[in-house]
């Protein structure tokens, strides 16, 4: 069996098992068994060839003959760029399925696993497609299956609202992609090879238009600001294993699409990189700021996806700038950092969402200020969440640091380069990364500290229960991966070179040479990490020798106060308050405060809420205006099926006449 057949077998198993699980829906246990078993098997079959492609660096493709509309038949292919996305996709797909079976438990619906497996299969198809038609079909399937997963808890108004918003956003994005591919394909066939050949001859203004369409269309899926508004709604509404999959890898298909399609548009214009960099810094800083202001754990994590997509965009921006200005080292390091961050973010964000799911499952709420002290009640989940939190802050020696380091290296190379534009870009990139890093540390010390440390703030939190082994093992596996990618980074780096070469349009020497610049630093970082680990071990031993078992227990020293109560603890809101105040003009947090009145005040309330800036100030008015304008056409909408059939028939007739002319 060649690798491509293996991948196809994985796809088929995913689809078949999904269908079988829906048919077996009457027996919930069998439905879950079929669905999860198929998902795991399909993902493993997909993982093997993807890893093989990364190690071997080869490209494969297969064409399935099929009559029109696809023209020459469907074409699927596996190259190193696809493989970089395929590896985390299949890994996370399998782990989240195992977790999800336990997480959903009795709450599973008849079609839960059908939609889940379809989502995984369609995501794989998106990165495997070598043909615009297949790509768009897979893209749409992905959007629809994830829509049904977001609306899984359709009894909740919040889930319905979120799913609706997601539906609108993703289709607006797809409209741009449809237009973009239509323009691209108008000059020849729909195959990616043909597009790449035709693209080199694109006139510059058309290339600019296509770049903007790709940025908006793919940016909507990826969550670039200001197209991210669906993200903080949809991810918290979905079941946690689905949030992990969507936030971890589904939004990365937007990044994949952007990298793939920009390859068709000829040599990158210098401003493309600058534009991506600006988008990246904006998404990164605003994403983490809005995350800081959230009160819900999953919503906080969703905003962090916007932040991390921003970091990836910074890497891409530096990469395209490097390409445009003839600085292969800057380009290779930027692309490598972005690609590695795609993988890393999938690992730690998947881990964090699974952890949030365990908290939700065990304590019954994700509201930060109602939790606390969970580390004692859920030690496994807590430890895994801590690993994820350290990794997402980009702290050494875990994986987040490695990818951010590569982007920093690219930025510093840009700073010392001769081209003034790249110098300024590198400087803004590294200043942005530094600010994002500091703010992310603030956000995750808050999230981990308030949820897992201190005393439980409510009885609900005090009664929290640890998740079962089927939920803990996937988290443990992801936590180990966070460490492994960090520690084996010098070995991981060469695996990225073929993928970087694909993005840099077949300049393998330039890619390899550029990445070689990072080999020495990464080796040193691993050495420093080893020193750090040894020191931690030595100091722990010293501390144990000095103290032995002599440590005494007491209450927390609260400056002489005798009975500290859990409600006196610092809350998540108060922890973030200095920073949210500092950035108040951007965040525009609403406060509702009923102050105590009279000599004997009865009750007081205080609440803050931070709505999305763009949602409230840009999209809400825009959609209101559009709605008002479109009200003129309401006479055409009578809600009768016959009438709509008539419309369709008339449209077809008109098109036919148009073609005959």
């Amino acid at each position, binding site marked *: 069996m060649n690798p491509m057949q293996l991948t196809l077998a994985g796809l088929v198993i995913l689809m078949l098992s999904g269908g079988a699980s829906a048919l077996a829906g009457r027996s919930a246990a069998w439905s879950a068994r079929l669905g999860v078993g198929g998902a795991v098997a399909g993902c493993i079959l997909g993982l093997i060839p993807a890893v093989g492609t990364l190690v071997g660096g080869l490209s494969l493709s297969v064409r399935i003959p099929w009559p029109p509309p696809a023209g020459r038949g469907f074409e699927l292919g596996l190259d190193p760029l696809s493989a970089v996305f395929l590896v985390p996709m299949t890994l996370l797909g399998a782990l989240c399925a195992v977790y999800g079976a336990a997480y959903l438990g009795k709450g599973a619906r008849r079609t839960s696993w059908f939609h889940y497996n379809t989502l995984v299969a369609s995501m794989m198809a998106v990165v495997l497609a070598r043909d615009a038609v297949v790509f768009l079909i897979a893209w749409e399937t992905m959007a629809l299956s994830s829509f049904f997963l977001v609306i899984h808890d359709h009894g909740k108004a919040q889930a319905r609202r979120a799913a609706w918003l997601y539906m609108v956003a993703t289709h607006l994005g797809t409209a741009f992609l449809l237009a973009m591919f239509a323009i691209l394909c108008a000059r020849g066939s729909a195959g990616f090879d043909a597009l790449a050949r035709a693209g080199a001859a694109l006139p510059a203004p058309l290339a600019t238009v296509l770049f903007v369409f790709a940025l908006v269309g793919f940016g909507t899926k990826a969550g670039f600001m200001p197209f991210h508004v669906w993200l903080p709604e949809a991810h918290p509404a979905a079941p946690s294993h689905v949030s992990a999959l969507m936030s971890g890898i589904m939004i990365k298909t937007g990044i994949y699409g952007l990298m793939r399609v920009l390859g068709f548009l000829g040599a990158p214009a210098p401003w493309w990189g600058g534009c991506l960099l600006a988008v990246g810094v904006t998404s990164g800083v605003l994403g983490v700021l809005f995350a800081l202001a959230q009160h819900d754990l999953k919503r906080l994590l969703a905003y962090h996806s916007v932040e991390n997509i921003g970091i990836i965009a910074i890497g891409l921006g530096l990469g395209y700038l490097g390409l445009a200005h003839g600085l292969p080292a800057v380009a290779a390091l930027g692309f490598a950092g972005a690609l590695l961050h795609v993988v890393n973010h999938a690992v730690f964000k998947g881990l964090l969402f699974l952890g949030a799911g365990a908290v939700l499952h065990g304590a019954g709420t994700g509201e930060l200020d109602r939790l606390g002290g969970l580390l004692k009640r859920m030690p496994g989940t807590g430890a895994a969440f801590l690993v994820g939190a350290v990794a997402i802050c980009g702290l050494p020696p875990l994986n987040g640091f490695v990818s951010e380091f590569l982007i920093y290296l690219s930025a510093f190379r840009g700073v010392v380069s001769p081209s003034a534009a790249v110098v300024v870009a590198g400087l803004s990139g590294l200043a942005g990364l*530094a600010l994002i890093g500091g703010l992310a540390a603030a956000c995750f*010390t808050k999230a981990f*500290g308030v949820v897992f440390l201190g005393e439980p703030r409510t009885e609900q939190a005090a009664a929290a229960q640890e998740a079962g082994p089927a939920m803990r093992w996937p988290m443990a596996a992801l936590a180990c991966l966070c460490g492994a990618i960090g520690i084996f980074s010098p070995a991981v780096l060469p695996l990225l070179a073929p993928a970087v070469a694909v993005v840099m349009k077949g300049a393998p020497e330039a890619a390899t040479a550029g990445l070689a610049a990072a080999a020495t*630093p990464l080796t040193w970082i691993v050495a420093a990490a080893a*020193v750090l680990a040894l020191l931690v071990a030595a100091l722990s031993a010293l501390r144990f020798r000095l103290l032995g078992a002599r440590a005494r227990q007491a209450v927390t020293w609260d400056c002489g106060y005798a009975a500290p109560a859990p409600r006196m603890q610092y809350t998540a809101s108060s922890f973030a308050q200095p920073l949210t105040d500092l950035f108040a003009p951007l965040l525009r947090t609403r406060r509702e405060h009923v102050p105590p009145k009279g000599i004997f005040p009865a009750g007081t309330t205080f609440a803050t809420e931070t709505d999305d800036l763009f949602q409230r100030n840009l999209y809400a008015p825009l959609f209101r205006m559009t709605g008002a304008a479109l009200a003129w056409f309401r006479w055409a909408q009578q809600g009768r099926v016959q009438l709509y059939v008539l419309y369709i028939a008339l449209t077809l007739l008109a098109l036919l006449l148009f073609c005959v002319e």
Partner: protein
Amino acid sequence: MMFLSLTNVVLALLAAPLLLGVINRTKAFFAGRRGQPLLQAYYDLAKLLRKDAVYSRTTTWVFRAGPVVGLACALTAAALAPLGGARGLISFPCDLILLAYLFGVMRFFTVVAALDTGSSFEGMGASREVQFSALAEPALLLGLAVVARLTGELSLSGMFAALSPAAYAASGPVLALVGVSFLVVVLAENSRIPVDDPNTHLELTMIHEVMVLDHSGPDFAFILYGAALKLWVLGSLLVNVVLPVRTGSAALDLAAALAGMLCLAVLVGVIESCMARVRLLRVPQLLVGAVVVSGLAFVLLLR
């Protein structure tokens, strides 16, 4: 070369607590007191290491891990920092990122250890710490980017070895601005006046001291020593920029750098004696000011 780097690290490990002594003596001089012995920090460390520890029942292993991880990070950072033209023990392109992020790890664990106690005091200190450090980090990295651009080197050792009095003649204002920015970073990151007051333990204005309120015994010794090392390492960045003495003799260069470190300690003492702590709401302005100064230095450099 290797020997010099090793000497550097050993010096940092031995002399870091001395800086605290010098600062305190300077402050005592300004206050007209005789002050504590120069070696008081060493006595404190020795005493704390012999003491027992008391742990709050609220805390978990995270609280115990905080000081250990923090000190380990500071020790590793000491191996990265070059001084007096000698290379750091660990040195590679962009090692400055690792240095900054090691302090990030130290801060992360100090903060979560503080939150582990469930005390509102420590929560308050932790909240302020993360706010100020988020603003200080861009200032530090921008300043280092200026030096990188100026020297064309990417490693700390390479950058600072390439600096010399001649560099001052060529681009003095740039380096001076970077020095100003670094001074603010050193004061802020090490919880010194005008950002934080290391003397007050129980006021609502403090940051670092309140975060470690619950630590005792060897844990507190680790924290104290880690803080001294952090002061040494960040201070050495400043001294490297401001005082690039290159005589040709490694020993003389190192001696000049050490004198610079002591002068820095005196300077910190003078600042602490002459200034009041700024209001908490003003601290972000100070730090953003440092970022702007670093940026200005870059603009001057590109001109």
